[in-house]
């Protein structure tokens, strides 16, 4: 499965705004958002704002970087939903 990213700004009504649409072969599978300075130790980490299909559960903790987030999405999307 090949993932591609598309930068997007998201209205979360918080200081978190910079996001990425995550596409898998043309289908939107997740939306990631980079956590702002308001999140203390997790500032700069990537949070799964929305996961579609079997990416909706379980909700993962924020990822250190985009590489970790995409690795998790690849693994999770490759599994059948439970």
């Amino acid at each position, binding site marked *: 499965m090949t993932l591609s990213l598309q930068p997007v700004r998201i209205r*979360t*009504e918080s200081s978190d705004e910079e996001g990425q649409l995550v596409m898998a072969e043309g289908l939107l599978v997740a939306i990631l958002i980079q956590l702002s300075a*308001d*999140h203390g130790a997790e500032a700069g980490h990537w*949070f799964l704002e929305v996961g579609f299909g079997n990416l909706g559960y379980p909700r993962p903790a*924020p990822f250190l970087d985009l590489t970790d987030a995409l690795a998790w999405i690849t693994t999770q999307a490759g599994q059948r939903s439970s």
Partner: protein
Amino acid sequence: MSLAAGTDLSLLIRKLETIITVSDVERQAIERLPVTRRQLSAHQDIVRDGDHPKQCCLLLEGWAFRYKLLDEGKRQILSVHIPGDIPDLQSLHLPVMDHSLSTLTACTLAFIPHEAMLDLTRNHPGITAALWRDTLVDAAIFREWMTNIGRRSTLGRITHLFCEIYLKLHAMGLARDFACEMPLTQGDIADAIGVSNVHVNRVLQELRGQGLLTLQGQRLVIHDWDALTNRAEFDPAYLHQKRPPGP
């Protein structure tokens, strides 16, 4: 571990007095309960899912919470408890624990043997009725939590939880002037209302920005009670407090 003094049980009397008028005879019977006082550190299980307890515990100091664990370590906090509560009272009649009970902060607990509690309820129908009523209020709180988790926004859930905790503490004389202790972390709040820590943090920033409340250093200060209860759609009727609600 040590035997508790009668004064420990005055907390149970104070709790029951938020429900009924306790007679002198009932007061004396409660004070004669044989209890064992224990101190537990924070985040220690008091009783676990599947246990068959022979005693129940009166919370004397500190906070506790009921919870269930799901696969992959996901935790749902089911209720939050403060001094005066007997969070495992149902074990008196339901022999197997169907959830776990843990301390949130360091706690002092008075353990009361089931047999002594059963004797008390057999001999004092007024106390039985008060405990039954307390159990019914517990169920009312669960209904409200179900509505909260199922149908309210994250902001509605958090503000509702804070309103409930403040009024419960206030009824026990443990909070006043719109301020109280708040040892729940953002992670605990997230597990209680079924959202992520990130969403809890965003909403707390928003509430602070709007001047509704401040949560800092384990202390909650409510700056605008009316606005907060409006945002939460909070109707305190489900707490069935004897005294008129309001700080």
